[in-house]
């Protein structure tokens, strides 16, 4: 953690009645990064964001936004950020353009040239009444409103819900442009591809707790590489090699069919042993965020958080 963190959340606790929605959550967003905030439905992503925006109070732990108190200094801090809520609701009788004006009035700092440009890129008709918009178009209005602001931090809560793949790509381009200009983005999502495409660092939460946090490279290092090889001879001592697990070998048509997962650091050694056994075919699946994500989400997954740099359990 550095003092330059835009968002600093430590041990955050929030109760809704007798339900502990946040259970000691940690989140650090550094200036200038796109931070992916991943978690299954109901994990506490929106609650955390609402606390950061001073829309809700927290019951324990600490939350700082731009170094300030998100509840007490709410309006002062808000002039430095833009927000796309998870549930977009517009004024049904007003046109899309009028809704944008209203949101701009509340937030300030909207660059109107950029707004027009974004509306164009999202293929939005601003003269339509909000009630006549489809879900995707309502989402686009909210996206234009959030992405057209001249702010330091953009908070996006499930931004691409309802968007078609084409618009999703436009969205990713625009986010990258904003980052190139120095904006920090907190991107809450449960869509891995989107986070993988955009995020520099990721925090994965589950049941109100941070399970994993780190750069994508770091996270990949914690996941395991999946290897499938067919060799002429039985590879020597591979099953007992450190870092290898889920090992299985069988004889198929006179060859040895071997499958295992391995920690990336031990890959070189393992491939060497396979090589010595004369490789016929070899498939190496690189670690994906999916695997990590699913392992963290699995109902029987451990609740123990792992710090970045520590060894993950893999799949």
């Amino acid at each position, binding site marked *: 953690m550095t003092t330059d963190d835009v968002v600093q959340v430590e041990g955050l606790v929030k109760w809704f009645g007798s339900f502990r929605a946040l259970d000691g959550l940690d989140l650090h967003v550094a200036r200038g990064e796109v931070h992916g905030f991943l978690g299954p439905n109901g994990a506490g992503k929106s609650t955390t964001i609402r606390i950061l925006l001073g829309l809700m109070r927290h019951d324990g732990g600490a939350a700082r936004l731009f170094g300030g108190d998100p509840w007490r200094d*709410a309006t002062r801090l808000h002039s430095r950020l833009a927000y796309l809520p998870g549930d977009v609701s517009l004024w049904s009788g007003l046109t899309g353009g009028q809704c944008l004006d209203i949101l701009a009035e509340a937030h*300030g700092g909207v660059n109107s040239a950029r707004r027009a440009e974004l509306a164009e890129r999202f293929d939005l008709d601003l003269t339509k009444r909000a*009630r*006549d918009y489809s879900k995707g178009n309502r989402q686009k209005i909210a996206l234009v409103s959030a992405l057209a602001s001249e702010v330091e931090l953009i908070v996006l809560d499930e931004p691409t819900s309802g968007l078609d793949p084409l618009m999703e790509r436009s969205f990713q381009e625009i986010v990258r442009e904003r980052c190139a200009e120095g904006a920090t983005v907190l991107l809450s999502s449960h869509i891995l591809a989107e986070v993988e495409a955009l995020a520099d660092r990721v925090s994965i939460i589950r049941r109100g707790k941070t399970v994993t946090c780190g750069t994508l490279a770091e996270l990949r290092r914690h996941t395991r590489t999946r290897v499938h090889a067919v060799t002429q001879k039985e590879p020597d001592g591979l099953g007992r090699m450190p870092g290898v697990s889920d090992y299985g070998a069988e004889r198929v048509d006179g060859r040895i069919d071997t499958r295992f997962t391995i920690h990336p650091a031990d890959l070189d050694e393992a491939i060497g042993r396979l090589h010595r056994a004369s490789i016929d075919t070899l498939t190496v699946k690189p670690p994906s965020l999916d695997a990590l994500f699913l392992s963290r989400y699995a109902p029987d997954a451990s609740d123990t958080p792992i710090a970045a740099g520590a060894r993950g359990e893999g799949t």
Partner: protein
Amino acid sequence: MTGLGPLLRIQRRTRWRSLAVWVVGLIGGLAATAASIAQLYDTPAKIKSYGDAVVSNALVAINGRVEGIDSLGGIVQDEFGFIASFLMPLFGIVVVASVTRREEESGRLEALLAGRIDRRAPTLASLVLVLAAVVVTIAGFVASLLVAGITASGAVLYSVALGMLTLVFATLATVCAQVVLHARGVYILGFAVVGVSYVLRGVGDVTGTDWVWLSPLGWVEKTAPFADTQRWWVLAIPFIVSFTLAAAAVLLADRRDLGGALYRPGPGPAAASRRLVRPVGVAAYVQRSTFAGWLVGSVALAAVMGALAEEVIHAVLGNPSLSNLVTFTSDDAADGFLALTQVYLAIIACGYIVQALGTLRQEEADGRLEPILAGAVSRRRWLSSQLAVVIGGLVVLVVASAVVFGAATALSTGDSGYVATLLGAGLAYLPAELVFAGIAVAVFGVAPRMYAVAWAGFGAATFIALLGHGLQMPQWLLDISPTTHIGNPPLGDVDTVSLVVLTLISAALVITGFAAFRRRLIPQG
């Protein structure tokens, strides 16, 4: 406060139409009342005759005890009393609920509060908005009263007192909006307080006790705008109460979470019951709170008025000029009073119908109709289930109110015959009430976005039914309201031909609505 300005501009943009309708409607209502009364009571002798006539506990219970009833202004205050007792509070409650809790419920407030808008700003903005509307209304009231030839100081005091009434309930609604989760809850709490205030004021006025002072409606009355000695200081009470309530609301708003409330219901069942999954069951679920609210209001009015029947008979015996009452023209003032109350009950039932069928529109606009019609439920089955539930509710409402009204009247007068008489009278109004069901279904079928037309029809009918006779409107105007055609039971005889005609009209309207609903685009948001 940060964000108050932007929020006000936003509200002005999204709300000005409904605010304008309220302000124009209220001013128009008072202006029409004052103008007609000035025309009817154009000599001091006529004015005096009115004063002599209404010194009855029965009318005091309904309209309030008006000090200075022997003046033009006093007559206006008396005639406008009943309508003002409900419309002025309603005005405040509706505006505040829609600006605060409704916006929060819809999720629109979240996007705004994440901007440079203080979390107390929505509450304050709603009050500023109400205050501005009230100031305009007061100005309009004063102008209408002056035009009718009513003294300036009385006109100003009366108008300000009415405006303060709206403010008291508006500030009350801002507190309610912190306590409950939904705008509907704000309405229910607010209306409950209106009902209690009305009863407290009525009981206090009839018994001549200090109960009146506990009721915001009583504060209007106690300013005595048209009496020889006005009590301007009484305005301080609603002022202090409003200020305290507003301060409490702002303090609460500053402390709570977005989407939070002091009271929130616990978890419910994980599965729908057998009854709930059928279209009728869903309709009943959607309607239950609306129905409960109107039922409580109607039964309470019936009970209070029935209990006062004995007082009326005494008043009639002691005061022969009561038979010249402007609101009815029979020798039997007891029956006249009961007939008048019956009209009020019928109006309540019509209001229930219009609001209950308005939820159909809400179901469609909120997107809940689409998935249901996409399933195995046909349009006709859905609409008929909804209509059946609402009309079933109407019958229960009418019968319950009539039975309570009859029983209370029988208890207070000792004449058990009233139970049957008043049940008959209550049921006789059903065809008139069904006309509103017809109008509502027809509007929903033909032009769902114009559902306000049904409300406008209800407003016009209410105005005619409550004030038509007092203001001696021409017969053609009176005839517009379906309630006119029933025959004013139990005072007059029920007009059976009209009942048949009204039923046929309702049926024709309902059929039109069904036919149009089968053909039109769904959803029309």
